[in-house]
């Protein structure tokens, strides 16, 4: 044999006996494993395929069909392993042999097909053999009489050959398509269908000649449309309905040649009562028209339109409606694409005429149901193309505008305006970037006058619709003139100043924000000066005595403040709006214009919003760094130095609410600063707080011996509480920024948090300490810092008489939080201490609550946007490391301490992500059920609120405990606390969506129990009871669930 044969000559004889015995054992002995051995022998070069055929000789020529089959099977299985090593000559001989065997007895066919499939994988397939193989296959085998696996074998032969011998197969012409059609005709198995659809798709996409078999190919595949398939439970093959739908859709929509068959089929299937069939038909329609031209569609347009109209007019599901609208858009854009011939009619405009004829008149009946479906259909055509939107808006806009002007009822006008707004939006989506002339420019004036008249109406919902219509109109580039914008600003300003309705002013603020992004200059020139003037205008003295006037003045300022934030997205606007906000703060401080604490807080919120939303970070960052942060610190310091008078007399800037609102302004802007500015901010803040260096503050008339972090005389807190601003500065900087004098700073903060008696001061100092610790690089200095602090904290906590136990505890829990976030190994010592405190008489409940602090995110410190070191899944990690300890502690605790453990546990579980809750729940379920019987209402509530989300997708463990769960929940219906009653009713409601057979046994009992809360004295409880009872009634009832 080939080369190696000679070398191996000596072992030849032994090998041939081995081979003969392998054949014997496989064929007569029916030992399937021998095929593997034979294949291995061929692979290793022990013997050749030719020798195998020779050895098989007798079995292949046996008069017994089963023996022949067995013989062929051995050969095929060997080929399956070794097809890569065959020469062209060998392949040719083998193919001739196999083709011939196809004519043999039917029991031989399966192994023959396997062999042929192996051969189709050969790279050495001689030219012409693909064609001859297929010819014999199509001629001698009736594929659909074969078993599942053999049919699959035929399909994969076709797939293999199409991959490698495309040119040869195309040479077969339409015969190939015909052969395939015959092979798959009647296929029922979803696995094989996926293969068959794949072949059909390749036939279409790779340009095989369909010849006169186009309709046959369509028929043989389209008979599965729409796909109706439910995989058996525990299906190992994992074939989904969606997969089949997509594959079949790929076939049916693949070529315009199918159009004449597919479109009538779609029209027919749209008539179906099955929603999924409708949906599939509509989606197939949307997919197919992307390939079609108008001539493919022409004769079906009326039929398609009638079906689409019916689906949208009488729709019962939103899915079908939106699929119908998408199909209409696709149809229209197909018609818009096609090039017009001089002799053919304009199919787009005749199609749109059809639609306008059916829909337009409904737009004149704003009270009736069909106004919306009609509008949606017309808008769907508008979205399709610029030309379509031209035609449709030209037809409907004049009458809509007329209608608006002639109708007097607000509800009708609002519907009309909403319809107009949707048209504007759909025009926007069809607008191509290069067209300079807007579709709506002919209606600009009329539309503007409609908007402005609607803004001047007194009806609030009309005003709201007008603001969103105005926003949409402004988005159309190049449509509105500068004068229109100015007029719009006048209207918006007027509404901001006088409109009391919260929904309207929210809409106005939003609209102003959107417009200011597009036209910043007009807003700087008009809106900001006007709002400033009105805000600083003191109400008349006699108005101040009237509470309602005072209230409306406050509300006006509130609206102005939020409008100032909303319009400040571009840095040019920020330059003008932030000085106004700062002036509010300084006037409030000096008292030159009186602003309430609320208003000052709102001004801070607005500053914070600006810091969050600005687009140009560098320029705005400089503005915050140079002006706003120094100014805020300076104002706060001035106020602090004046000291704490009684509320009302002292500056509003020493109020906790104001300071807490300033912190996020500073932290948000600091977290976004460029590195150099950030470093400068850090050193300025540290030198201000440690050394009393006030040189960078504006209005510098401060005394020289300021010591903000030292213990103040007589426990004065107005200066010590400023530490929260320090936290805002230094805890939100990028980690790369070095904080100067860090050791002195940390020890000053530790000192303050352990000694100060003012809550805001010691808490902020603890948070600031924790924020810095979180970002310190790991190593000995950090470890010794933590150990030192812990020693101090523990000594305070261990002496029950200490006056600063709460302070020490606060510092400990914040440091624990900082270490938990970064997975620091020393965290464990802190948790141990925390667990031991759950048994503490005074601090126990506080310790239980603090678990919620450990698991929550905070907006001002220790979060990702402050560049804190937050590892992913720290909550899960904490939970998995500590839940067992909690359970143990619970079991060991005395009766009155047990509730602390339950509260701690429910605090943790509450904050875990849903997936983790579901997986962890089984282990904790009995404890949580126990917690439901705990008399503490806080524990009940927090347990219920962590159960409630889990009930939506109940894990099996919960279903096993259903009896206990139902009992406990029903018992809680009698709780004296309405919140407990409400949440337990919600849980009972959620139980109704459990698997029916599980909950049905409880139906009668639950319905009886729910009768009582129907007569609860609280309306909120009654309404939950009504909903829950309604669902339980539907359970197991016809038409219900």
């Amino acid at each position, binding site marked *: 044999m080939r080369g190696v044969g000679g070398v191996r000559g000596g072992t030849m004889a032994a090998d041939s006996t081995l081979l003969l015995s392998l054949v014997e054992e496989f064929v007569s002995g029916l030992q399937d494993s021998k095929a593997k051995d034979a294949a291995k022998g061929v692979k290793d070069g022990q013997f050749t395929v030719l020798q195998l055929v020779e050895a098989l000789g007798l079995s292949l020529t046996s008069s017994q069909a089963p023996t022949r089959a067995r013989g062929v099977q051995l050969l095929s299985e060997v080929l399956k392993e070794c097809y890569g090593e065959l020469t062209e000559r060998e392949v040719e001989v083998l193919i001739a042999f196999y083709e011939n065997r196809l004519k043999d007895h039917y029991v031989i066919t399966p192994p023959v097909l396997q062999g042929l499939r192996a051969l189709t994988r050969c790279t050495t397939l001689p030219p012409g053999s693909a064609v001859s193989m297929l010819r014999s296959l199509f001629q001698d085998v009736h594929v659909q009489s074969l078993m599942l696996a053999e049919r699959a074998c035929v399909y994969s032969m076709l797939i293999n050959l199409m991959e490698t011998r495309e040119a040869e197969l195309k040479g077969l012409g339409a015969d190939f398509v015909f052969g395939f059609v015959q092979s798959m005709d009647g296929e029922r198995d979803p696995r094989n269908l996926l293969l068959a659809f794949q072949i059909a798709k390749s036939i279409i996409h790779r340009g095989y000649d369909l010849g006169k078999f186009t309709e046959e190919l369509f028929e043989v595949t389209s008979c599965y449309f729409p796909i109706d398939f439910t995989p058996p439970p525990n299906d190992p093959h994992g074939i989904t309905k969606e997969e089949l739908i997509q594959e079949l859709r790929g076939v049916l929509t693949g070529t315009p040649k199918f159009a004449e068959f597919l479109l009538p089929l779609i029209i027919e299937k749209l008539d179906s009562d099955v929603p999924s069939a409708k949906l599939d038909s509509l989606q197939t329609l949307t997919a197919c028209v992307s390939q079609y031209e108008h001539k493919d569609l022409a004769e079906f347009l009326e039929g398609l339109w009638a079906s689409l109209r019916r689906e949208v007019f009488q729709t019962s599901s939103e899915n079908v409606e939106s699929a119908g609208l998408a199909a209409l858009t696709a149809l229209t854009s197909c018609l818009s694409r096609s090039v017009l011939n001089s002799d053919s009619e304009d199919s787009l405009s005749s199609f749109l005429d059809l639609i306008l004829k059916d829909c337009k008149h409904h737009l004149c009946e704003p009270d009736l149901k069909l106004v919306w479906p009609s509008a949606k259909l017309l808008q769907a055509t508008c979205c399709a193309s610029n030309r379509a939107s031209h035609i449709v808006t030209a037809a409907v806009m004049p009458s809509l505008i007329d209608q608006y002007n002639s109708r007097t009822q607000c509800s009708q006008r609002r519907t009309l305006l909403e319809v107009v707004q949707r048209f504007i939006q759909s025009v926007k989506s069809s607008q191509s970037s290069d067209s300079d002339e807007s579709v709506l420019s002919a209606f600009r004036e009329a539309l503007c006058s409609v908007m402005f008249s609607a803004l001047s109406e007194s009806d609030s919902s009309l005003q709201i619709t007008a603001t969103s219509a105005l926003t949409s109109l402004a988005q159309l580039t190049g449509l509105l003139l500068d004068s229109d914008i100015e007029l719009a600003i006048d209207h918006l300003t007027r509404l901001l100043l006088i409109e009391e309705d919260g929904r309207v002013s929210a809409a106005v603020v939003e609209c102003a924000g959107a417009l200011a992004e597009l036209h910043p200059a007009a807003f700087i020139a008009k809106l900001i000066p006007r709002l400033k003037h009105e805000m600083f205008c003191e109400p008349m003295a006699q108005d101040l005595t009237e509470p309602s006037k005072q209230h409306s003045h406050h509300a006006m300022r509130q609206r102005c403040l939020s409008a100032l934030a909303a319009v400040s997205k571009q840095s040019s606007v920020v330059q003008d709006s932030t000085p106004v906000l700062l002036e509010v703060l300084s006037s409030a401080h000096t008292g030159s214009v009186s602003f309430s604490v609320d208003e000052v807080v709102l001004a801070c919120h607005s500053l914070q919003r600006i810091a969050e939303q600005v687009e140009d970070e560098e320029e705005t960052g400089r503005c915050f760094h140079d002006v706003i942060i120094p100014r805020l610190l300076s104002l706060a310091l001035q106020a602090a130095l004046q000291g704490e008078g009684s509320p009302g007399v002292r500056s509003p800037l020493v109020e906790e609410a104001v300071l807490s609102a300033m912190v996020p302004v500073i932290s948000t802007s600091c977290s976004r600063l460029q590195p150099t500015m950030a470093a400068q901010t850090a050193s300025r803040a540290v030198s201000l707080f440690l050394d009393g260096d006030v040189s960078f503050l504006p209005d510098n008339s401060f005394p020289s011996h300021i010591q903000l972090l030292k213990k103040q005389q007589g426990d004065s807190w107005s200066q010590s509480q400023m530490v929260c601003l320090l936290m805002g500065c230094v805890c939100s900087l990028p980690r790369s920024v070095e904080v100067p004098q860090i050791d002195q700073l940390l020890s000053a903060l530790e000192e303050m948090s352990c000694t100060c008696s003012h809550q805001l001061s010691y808490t902020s100092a603890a948070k600031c300490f924790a924020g810095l610790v979180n970002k310190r690089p790991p190593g000995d200095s950090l470890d010794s810092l933590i150990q030192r602090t812990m020693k101090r904290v523990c000594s305070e906590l261990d002496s029950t008489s200490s006056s600063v136990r709460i302070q020490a505890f606060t510092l400990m829990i914040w440091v624990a939080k900082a270490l938990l976030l970064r997975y620091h190994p020393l965290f464990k010592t802190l948790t141990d201490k925390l667990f031991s405190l759950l048994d503490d008489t005074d601090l126990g409940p506080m310790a239980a609550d603090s678990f919620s602090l450990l698991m929550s995110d905070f907006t001002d410190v220790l979060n990702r946007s402050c560049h804190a070191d937050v590892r992913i899944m720290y909550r899960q990690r904490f939970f998995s490391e500590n839940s067992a300890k909690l359970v143990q502690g619970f079991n060991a605790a005395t009766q009155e301490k047990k509730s602390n453990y339950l509260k701690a546990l429910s605090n943790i579980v509450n904050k875990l992500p849903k997936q983790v809750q579901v997986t962890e729940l089984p282990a904790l379920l009995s404890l949580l059920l126990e917690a439901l019987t705990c008399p503490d209402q806080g524990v009940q509530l927090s347990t219920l609120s962590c159960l409630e989300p889990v009930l939506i997708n109940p894990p099996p463990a919960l279903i096993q405990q259903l009896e206990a769960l139902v009992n406990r929940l029903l018992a809680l219906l009698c709780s004296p606390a309405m919140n407990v009653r409400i949440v337990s009713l919600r849980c009972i409601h959620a139980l109704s969506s459990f698997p029916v057979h599980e909950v049905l046994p409880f139906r009668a009992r639950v319905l009886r129990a729910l009768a009582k809360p129907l*007569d609860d004295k609280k309306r909120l409880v009654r309404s939950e009871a009504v909903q829950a009872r309604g669902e339980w009634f539907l359970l197991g009832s016809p038409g219900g669930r």
Partner: protein
Amino acid sequence: MSGGARLENANPVIFQRSGERLLTASEEDEDVHDPIDDREIFDLIRSINDPEHPLSLEELNVVEQIRVKVDDAGNTVGVEFTPTIPHCSMATLIGLSIKVKLLRSLPDRFKIDVHITPGTHASEEAVNKQLADKERVAAALENSSLLEVVNQCLSTRTI
């Protein structure tokens, strides 16, 4: 709704839905007793689905708050409903749905009276009589296909 079936009234007038009831401070106060009022009863029935359209009875103006009367102390509830057209064949079904909804949602101390707004339906008396007859209502709910339609009207719509 099947594609081919024609509706009796394919393009009805649509009315605006009222907003959610505003929460008052007293409703959140544990100690205050909130009486059952007209609006509360109206809230129970306004979201019932129409058997034909994907719309609520409120949107079709079949039920209105002014046509709901409740006497909490006297334990009576009265509801009038207005079919969209005088020959509406669904009137009995709508009445039955309202009645069933109230039976399921109110404490059993109430006597519930559901009838057609006088002068708005061709066979007003017959329908009212059926709805007032306890045994006939009970018998209707034994009929599983009727119960199925009623339950569909009372299901919270999932779109």
